[in-house]
């Protein structure tokens, strides 16, 4: 019954007011999140912002102190058993058995989920991974990229409807990351919902929808254009000599809210376009080249984080 209602409104994740406290620290503070079935939702935020805690609450690893909602149509508080059976959770740190071989790890997970026709499922998974010939190798001997692929394969072996990925690409080389994202898109194309925590900004752009949290609070969410539009940020790109000196002078001007150095350029942003324009006016006649640009997702996140009163740690 519950499952049908979840499918009916097309939401794979629908939670409200999720809160988790550890002693005096509120790790997750009243987060609402809706993710449609088949969507890739990027879950962004600095280290320690509460991403992992939130994901753990979704799959029943942590009990929320407040909040309610459903995950795949099941109540996140009372039906964590049902949720666990249909969710694939990939932990931040490699958490399969390093002293088991690749095939043994997959076999263990398949047994845990009582996967029908287990042997075939394991064999197919190995073939998809491209690890069939190395299946006897111990998982602990794999490189970071291969460990991550093994972890993903293990999370997928019971054909979950929702994937929760906690910083799956941390410490993985760019090539492996690209392949990983192609795989994620392929899976989403088959109707799988993916919630993926990351702090790589370039990965944010690969998601259908973003949620940005800092210090346990949800600061913004929506599609990439929506997030950019909502922020109402104005950004100028400056290039020229002595950018460090220029940045120092600009920083004290009202209307200049953030200055970020990008190689040999500065990105100067503020949410009041007029005030910002007045602030930079005296400098525009100088030796620098000024250009108004569309703010990037990174500008927005830095802006939101600082506005929320906490810099990224």
């Amino acid at each position, binding site marked *: 019954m519950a499952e049908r209602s979840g499918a009916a409104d097309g939401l794979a994740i629908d939670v409200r007011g999720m809160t988790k406290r550890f002693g005096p620290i509120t790790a997750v503070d009243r987060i609402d999140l809706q993710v449609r079935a088949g969507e890739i939702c990027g879950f962004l935020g600095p280290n320690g912002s509460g991403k992992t805690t939130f994901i*753990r609450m979704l799959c029943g690893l*942590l009990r929320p102190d407040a909040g309610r909602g459903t995950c795949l149509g099941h109540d996140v508080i009372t039906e964590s058993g049902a949720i*666990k059976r249909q969710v694939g959770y990939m*932990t931040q*740190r490699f*958490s*399969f058995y*390093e002293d088991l071989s690749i095939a043994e790890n997959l076999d263990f997970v398949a047994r845990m989920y009582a996967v029908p026709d287990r042997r075939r499922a394991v064999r197919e998974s190995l073939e998809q991974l491209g690890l069939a010939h190395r299946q006897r190798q111990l998982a602990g001997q794999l490189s970071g990229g291969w460990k991550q692929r093994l972890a993903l394969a293990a999370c997928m072996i019971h054909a979950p409807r929702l994937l929760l990925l906690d910083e799956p690409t941390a410490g993985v080389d760019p090539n492996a990351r690209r392949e990983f994202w192609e795989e994620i898109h392929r899976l989403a194309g088959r109707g799988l919902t993916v919630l993926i925590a990351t702090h790589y900004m370039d990965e944010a752009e690969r998601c259908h929808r973003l949620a940005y949290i800092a210090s346990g609070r949800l600061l913004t969410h929506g599609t990439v254009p929506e997030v950019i539009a909502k922020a109402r940020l104005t950004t100028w790109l400056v290039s020229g000599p002595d950018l460090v000196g220029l940045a120092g002078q600009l920083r004290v001007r009202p209307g200049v809210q953030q200055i970020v150095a990008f190689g040999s350029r500065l990105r100067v942003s503020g949410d009041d376009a007029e005030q910002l324009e007045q602030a930079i006016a005296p400098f525009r006649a100088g030796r620098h080249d000024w250009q108004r640009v569309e703010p990037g997702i990174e500008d927005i996140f830095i802006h939101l984080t600082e506005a929320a009163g906490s810099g990224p740690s």
Partner: protein
Amino acid sequence: MTRPPFSPARFWAMVVKEFIQMRRDRLTLGMMLGVPMMQLILFGFAINADPKHLPAAVLLADHGPQGRTLLYAMRNSGYFAFVRDVRSEGEGRELLARGDVQFLVNIPENFTRDLLRGDRPALLVEADATDPAATGNAIGALRVLAGGALQHDLRGPLAFLADAEEAGGVPAEPPKDPIDLRVHARYNPEGITPYNIVPGLMGVVLTATMVMITGIAITRERERGTMENLLSMPTRPLEVMVGKIIPYILVGYVQAGLILLAAWLLFGVPVAGNLLLLAGAALIFIAANLAMGITFSTVAKNQMQAMQMSFFFFLPSLMLSGFMFPFRGMPAWAQAIGELFPLTHFLRIVRGILLKGNGLDDVLLQLWQIALFAAVALTVGLMRYRQTLD
């Protein structure tokens, strides 16, 4: 330009860091202080290699005063505590077999009459000699006292019974005691210590390895990060715990089998009882130790702590179980603590089955106490096991 071979600053940095880490790990610090304290108390107060007040049953078939004098003398020696009166030898032997008493003292019919006639009546003492150390001193004392105890009673006209020389006769042979003391060291007549130690070792080895091996079982999952993964799967605590216990039961059986084989082949320990019964008892004993280990595992924060906890459990088990020192030599409080440990009961079972030929009836009382321990340990473990990471 060369680096100094020893830098006091770096050395001091190391010292400071070690102290900080030591202070953070409260359990280790507690163990470092607790273990010596425990050893001090156990060795100092609990252990007594000269056990006294050993429980004895009396089969009194003669009601003459001399028999009673003998019993009083035995009691006054401090080695014997007469706790039971039995009506027949069979009844007494049953008590002996179950380990309820250490001695069965039999004052046969016509003891007084034969004594007065100078026929040197027999005083029969059967001892449970599975642990030669427990009975040795008492038997030694008995031999001394058997001669002297009746001196007081045998005066005047009866004095000739006490000493042949005094009676005026020329002794053709060395003077004899007025009674014929016959001690039967049952179950281990030759007083061979390995007969007692080697079967006991089975219990000791199982305790040492089984508690530790499961002690690190869950902490290892936690330390390596695999616990998070395990918890995210649809598992139940009982599945995880029992699943972790079963493989080690097999390991325990292999250990027990090896020791048994060695006991038989190398030490010639007799196998008086049923090995199947022993295997059954060992199963419960192994499970109890594994359950204890699993419970430690749910409490300890890391593998190191789990190892320390197992050691903290093992040490008093070893000392207070009756393995190293006779159980009856310990003061009451130490015996009460000793009764809690599965090893104490298993030692009685394994010695009972191998040396005394105990059957199921005899070991049942010990067995259910081990089972109770296992159930309590597993329950605590299950209650402590968290299905979430909170």
